[in-house]
């Protein structure tokens, strides 16, 4: 079996010549509690790529995504944002790994939009306020400019007429689209999606997937953790299959999903066999 790193260096950095990845994880390890969740993961997203991350529950997909924007700090390995290495301090004794440069972490996070499985809209703020907070308090826009920007993105996700509604009064699908608008309003370099439709009723997943597909078609750089296989096949330029804290297999969707090389992915795609 090839290791994830071997696969990566063949297919990733070297194959793409001098291009710099927008976001890159290099040999990342992370233990949560006593459980080694990530065991040497390398993944790079180049400009305009859509990468889908697949894998069984517990394989470390969310943890990988959370390491990329430092919501979780890797124990070892590197995270690169364009040509900038993120300052990560390894664990010392009882203390876990921590962020070395808080300012850098904030700046990079502002350029990495994250969309969560459970939306995480702020319930005490209207749809519009959820979207304007970032532009006002992180980007330093005036209220007026931020409102204009927020309205644009709410229009884009088809929710401009709900701008003054509180999350409680929106359906799950609408809440997730507001969350997408909130991420977009930061005008991020890369979008990270962690199972954006997993907590939605089947009849509501369509509207969210349509929104994500539109973003993919705009050429946005995205990393998408999903269980929607046919959607992944359709929108991704590359899929990565995770198992046991490693990337087991990685490549173009038609190849990887049609002719899985590893037994793990074969089992994942067709549990019957």
């Amino acid at each position: 079996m090839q290791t994830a790193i071997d696969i990566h260096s063949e297919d990733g950095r070297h194959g793409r010549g001098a291009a710099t990845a927008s976001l890159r994880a290099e040999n990342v390890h992370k233990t949560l509690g006593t459980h080694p969740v990530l065991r040497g993961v390398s993944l790079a997203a180049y400009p305009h790529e859509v990468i889908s991350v697949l894998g069984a529950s517990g394989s470390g997909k969310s943890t990988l995504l959370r390491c990329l924007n430092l919501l979780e700090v890797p124990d070892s390995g590197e995270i690169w944002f364009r040509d900038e290495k993120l300052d990560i301090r390894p664990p010392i004794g009882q203390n876990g790994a921590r962020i070395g440069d808080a300012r850098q972490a904030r700046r990079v996070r502002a350029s990495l939009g994250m969309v969560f499985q459970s939306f995480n809209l702020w319930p005490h703020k209207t749809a519009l306020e959820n979207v304007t907070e970032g532009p006002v308090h992180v980007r330093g826009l005036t209220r007026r400019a931020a409102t204009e920007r927020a309205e644009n993105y709410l229009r884009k996700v088809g929710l401009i007429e709900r701008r003054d509604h509180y999350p409680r009064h929106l359906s799950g699908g609408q809440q997730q689209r507001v969350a997408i608008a909130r991420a977009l309003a930061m005008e991020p370099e890369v979008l990270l999606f962690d199972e954006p439709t997993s907590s939605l009723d089947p009849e509501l997943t369509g509207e969210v997937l349509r929104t994500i597909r539109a973003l993919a078609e705009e050429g946005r750089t995205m990393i998408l953790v999903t269980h929607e296989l046919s959607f992944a096949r359709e929108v991704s330029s590359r899929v990565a299959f995770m198992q046991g804290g490693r990337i087991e297999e990685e490549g173009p969707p038609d190849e990887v999903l049609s002719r899985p090389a590893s037994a793990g992915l074969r089992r994942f795609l067709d549990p019957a066999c």
Partner: protein
Amino acid sequence: MGGFQEQFLRGLETTVLVAAISGTLGMLVGLAGAAAKLSRFRVLRMIADAYTTIVRGVPELLVILLVYFGGTAALTALVGSYVEVSALWAGVFSLTVVFGAYATEIFRGAIQAIPRGQTEAALSIGLAPWQTWLLVILPQMARIALPALCNLWISLLKDTSLISIVGLSDIMRVAVVGAGSMRDPLTFYLAASALYLMLTSVSLLTFRLVERRMLAPLH
């Protein structure tokens, strides 16, 4: 009641003043206490735990007496001659300490009731931790804590009566003095009860209005 109306009025003023100052300061102590309890620094957590355990374990009346006589002893030793601390400030200090201990627990619980994802969403767009506190944690915490804070405020209003024992001229003190001098204790105690009842009723009503306004978006 022979001129006691005016004294009652001044007593009412004192009671409200002491409660308002202790309540405001106690809220700040509670916020700091909750932040300490949830901090990643062990020393801060231990100090905050000791504080709430001790203060909640001692009767309020004793806290007041300890502060009053302890303060007087400390001040006397410091100055070199006998100095008595003011009943008002000893009372404010004691009730702040008591209110702060209970508020610490209320705020800690309220903060822990906020889903982790709320903070993560804030951090993920690049907000600093202090901005996350101000924009996301505190407003949600306030809503959750409001009912318990209302109860705590009512207790505080009534606990101010304990300070009369060290000589504060609050409602209670006026009632006790009046009851002793006028041979009609029941009238004075009924009058005092009516004043406390009025204060607590107004408070309850105010809290209910605030609560309705603040919780509106969540229903």
